[in-house]
């Protein structure tokens, strides 16, 4: 209802407790190295896609963990899986698998499987 000329702003806060973190749990289970990320951003720095778009593997990684899935899903498929990120990762995170698993997890969550 906009008869006042404005509407109540939506909260920007991450509501950790009410967010659905099923996608993150799915990835944690299948790819334990997902835990190891220290958010250094090396992956995003070398990423070809990141140089063209706002796709950021680092950010994606943290948003999935917080259950902020909507922001993530539209970007996931921009990844070309080229693997440069895996090569630069100082923590040995299997980044490509995380992208593939995340895509799968979103499909599963669409089917209410997770």
């Amino acid at each position, binding site marked *: *209802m906009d*008869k*006042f*000329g*404005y*509407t*109540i*702003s*939506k*909260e920007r806060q991450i509501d950790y407790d009410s967010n659905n973190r099923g996608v993150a749990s799915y990835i944690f289970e299948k790819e334990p190295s997902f835990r190891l990320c220290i958010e250094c951003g090396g992956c995003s720095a070398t990423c070809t896609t990141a140089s063209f778009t706002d796709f950021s593997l680092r950010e994606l990684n943290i948003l999935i963990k917080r259950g902020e899935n909507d922001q993530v899903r539209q970007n996931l498929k921009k990844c070309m899986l080229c693997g440069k990120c895996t090569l630069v990762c100082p923590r040995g995170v299997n980044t490509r698998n995380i992208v593939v698993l995340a895509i799968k997890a979103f499909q599963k969550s669409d089917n209410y499987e997770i």
Partner: protein
Amino acid sequence: MIIKGKKAVWNDYQKEIADNNYYYVRSCVRQNFFPGSETAFLKIMREELNKDVYEHPCHTTCTGIGYHGDIVPVETTMTVVARQFALMTEAGYENLLPSCITSFGLYTEILDTWHHFPEVEKKVRKQLKKATGREFKIPKNLAHASDVIFKFRKEIGAKARYKLINKNTGEPLKVVDHIGCHYAKMFPSRGIGGAEYPYVLTGMIEEWGGQIIDYPERRHCCGFGFRQYLVQANRGFSIACSKEKFESMKPFKPDMIITNCPGCPMFLDRWQYVINEMEGKRYGQNGEGIPVFTYEEVAGLVLGYDPWDLGLQMHQTDCEPVLDKIGIEYAPEDKYKLNILPAYSEKHNLINV
């Protein structure tokens, strides 16, 4: 909640409040929003507590709204404030008693600035002299009106006709206190109880029989925020702030809200109506809203003043549920009768006086 811990904090944040001879400075907006409050304050101070409270007819705004709304530059503000001080000095008073939280915050800020940067004070003195020919003394004591009511809370309590107790259940009323941001957030040491666990309103409520509830968003701004509300495009943010507070206090089922700031009761009161209009969401028991009071109104009610004399008919969220709970007598049919207020007259336009 460990009350002992809280009390320890309260003990850490005490402040000196003058005993008598106050120079009262009004708030710009309260006279419109809750016009009974300041009248009630003066009445309580003069008639109930027998204090000398002086009001200078020539005092103006402190420019706080303009200052926090990024419109008035700080030097201008300081000069205007210096004029207030000059009026006080001329009237022979030393204890400044602003009605407005933002004024209180602003005076505190300016006095602190001058303390650290005497050259600024010097410059302002020069400017004031040049503009108005006036000179001033730094106030000896600066206390907000709610500080004074806090100071005399026991005296008021002793005279009370009503207690903040549900007459049907005997339980204390659950009261949410909301402290204006400019009261202690900028200078925690100048507020009773500090900024994290302010005691100023809590002390009154506890003294008068109510029970304060501590809810997670107690620190959150009411949503006025000056530049948030003043620009229409930002009002969605303003109302979201209030909503956040209501959502947070909701599980505690508060009976009423008490505030010590001009803007806060306005927004906590009016936004309840707007939220209901926009989202169909009603707060309070039975969806009747959570009544919002100023501390003067609450003091007046406790002392047995007529609710309509206190201006409670000006509230958008009806106060009757709380009045009923306490058992305050009132005449519903008198609510909107204007006979209490002086008749408005074209001829007596105050601006031309």
